[in-house]
């Protein structure tokens, strides 16, 4: 076709909508206003739980958790059988020490799982565009985030109950260790994972999956080092170190929660032994646990606000 012919075409935008289009609308069913907030959260939680359950890291963590439990049970059984002439108090100290080691390993696995399974949840879907089909449905972005959080939280809760609860149960069944604070200990370890989950979700609204995971693990490492510095300061009476540790706990309270859990679990002699991951000399206060709850809640709210306010 010649350019001349095209040049003759009227170029003015036909802004008016053609009159012949129909005004009638016949939908098979009346338009819904959406599923409602609670239903939307449950729908997202369910699909997220199933998606998370397919992550290899979950199964690796689960296998590792079961291996710990099996190892722990066998070791505890063998230790008790071979300690007939050992004083009861010493035996209990040893068993508690072993229990705390297993709990510590489980806590680390839980934390890693919380960060690594969820770092792709929002960032990956934003990058791939798969969130577009969800975000254009009549559900709020806050519900999407809350649903994803609930899905991961459900998975982490099961893991904590299985591995950490299993460790405490084995210690009670095999070693007869009193589990006076077991609920609180499990709660603190769970809260530690929730803090990390909230931070990861918030980061993944704005950063890539890899960066989000790195941010969370970086903060986790900072808290870990800060916890050691605080322990050192408490043992050596160096207030600056104690204060640095507290500041790091305020930045990321994950280690403080673990140290409070160990305080609840630790035998008296272990506490006197000095700084170690299994014993606390500087005991985070009850207020720190409350702070961590608020921290986790704020991280979740931040994730909701960040996703709601960004272009996707």
């Amino acid at each position: 076709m010649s350019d001349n012919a095209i040049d003759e075409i009227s170029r003015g935008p036909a802004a008016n909508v053609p009159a012949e289009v129909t005004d009638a609308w016949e939908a098979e069913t009346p338009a819904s206003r959406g599923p409602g907030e609670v239903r939307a959260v449950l729908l997202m939680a369910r699909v997220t739980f199933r998606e998370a359950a397919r992550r290899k890291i979950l199964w690796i963590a689960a296998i590792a958790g079961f291996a710990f439990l099996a190892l722990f049970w066998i070791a505890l059984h063998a230790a008790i059988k071979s300690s007939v002439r050992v004083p009861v108090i010493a035996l209990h100290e040893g068993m508690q020490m072993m229990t705390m080691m297993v709990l510590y390993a489980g806590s680390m696995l839980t934390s890693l799982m919380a960060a690594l399974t969820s770092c792709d949840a929002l960032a990956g879907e934003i990058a791939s565009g798969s969130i577009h089909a969800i975000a254009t449905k009549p559900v709020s972005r806050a519900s999407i985030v809350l649903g994803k959080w609930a899905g991961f939280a459900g998975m982490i809760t099961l893991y904590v109950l299985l591995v950490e609860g299993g460790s405490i149960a084995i210690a009670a069944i095999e070693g007869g260790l009193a589990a006076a604070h077991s609920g609180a200990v499990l709660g603190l370890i769970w809260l530690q994972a929730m803090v990390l989950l909230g931070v990861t979700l918030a980061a993944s609204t704005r950063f890539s999956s890899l960066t989000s995971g790195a941010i969370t693990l970086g903060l986790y490492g900072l808290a870990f080092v800060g916890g050691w510095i605080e322990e050192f300061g408490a043992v050596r009476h160096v207030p600056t170190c104690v204060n640095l540790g507290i500041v790091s706990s305020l930045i990321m309270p994950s280690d403080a929660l673990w140290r409070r859990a160990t305080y609840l679990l630790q035998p008296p002699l272990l506490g006197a032994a000095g700084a170690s991951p299994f014993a606390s000399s500087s005991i985070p206060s009850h207020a720190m646990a409350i702070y961590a709850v608020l921290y986790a809640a704020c991280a979740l709210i931040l994730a909701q606000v960040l996703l709601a306010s960004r272009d996707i």
Partner: protein
Amino acid sequence: MATLTIDACGLRKRYGSRIAVRDLTLQVGRGEAFGFLGPNGAGKSTSIKMLLGLVRPTGGSALLLGQPLGTREARARIGFLPEHFRFYDWLSATELLLFHGRLCGLKEDVLRRRVPRLLERVGLGAQSSKTIRSFSKGMMQRVGLAQAMINDPEILFLDEPTSGLDPAGRKLVREVIREQRDRGATVFLNSHLLGEVEQSCDRVAFIREGRIVGMYQMGAWQGERTDVEIKTSHIEPSALERLAGMARDLRLDGQLLRLSLDGEDRLPGVVRCLVESGAEIFSVIPQRVSLEDLFLKTMGPDPGL
């Protein structure tokens, strides 16, 4: 004036110093299939995302079904097929549609009826229980198309719906567009396949550098003048003289006679004249301005994006 389903006025989107969309002003009516065309980087995706509420405009205003952009009320009444539809690949096609239907707030009994029907409609009836991991790109587009229609949308946004589809799949998309339009839904189609748009849409808008630069009723650009190519032989000079009085720009290159007519209704007279003069006619081809011709002319030189 028909009921407007999309009414955008001066929508604008700026990312830092870069302006993605300068001025999106358009109105689309109910029951209309509207093509939205532009080269890469022209602002098509950003424009669609603004209308869908995925991207917040930095200027202008718009109503979707009478609602401000991004409201839950508006989103409940639209369907969207993203350019590269992806979703959790462990879901079966049925599970995927159930999930999206539930997100739309549809009741279970409605979904039980609608999901199998939609899967049949997009040609995936036999694959309903297969996980979408096993789906080809074309099958993913088909299931994506089905999820976009799960809530009987009043506006169906299709972003490159034929991407990855074979000819049968493209035919399916054309049929779906026609069906949706016939039932009164608005279809907003973004596609690089201009032939598809030409066959499916009632109107078309061109966007360039973030601005609407042309909007046409489909085919209205043809105008009165018709160029014709006639393959013929044994033309007498007297026949050419007679044709000169009926047509313009008359040229004979070997067996190919080219001429311009003031309207296609003059074409039979031209043919009759040739036949009566003893000429043999092998083909008569009116030259139409295709949408592609118009697009290329409107967009200017290829920027190589």
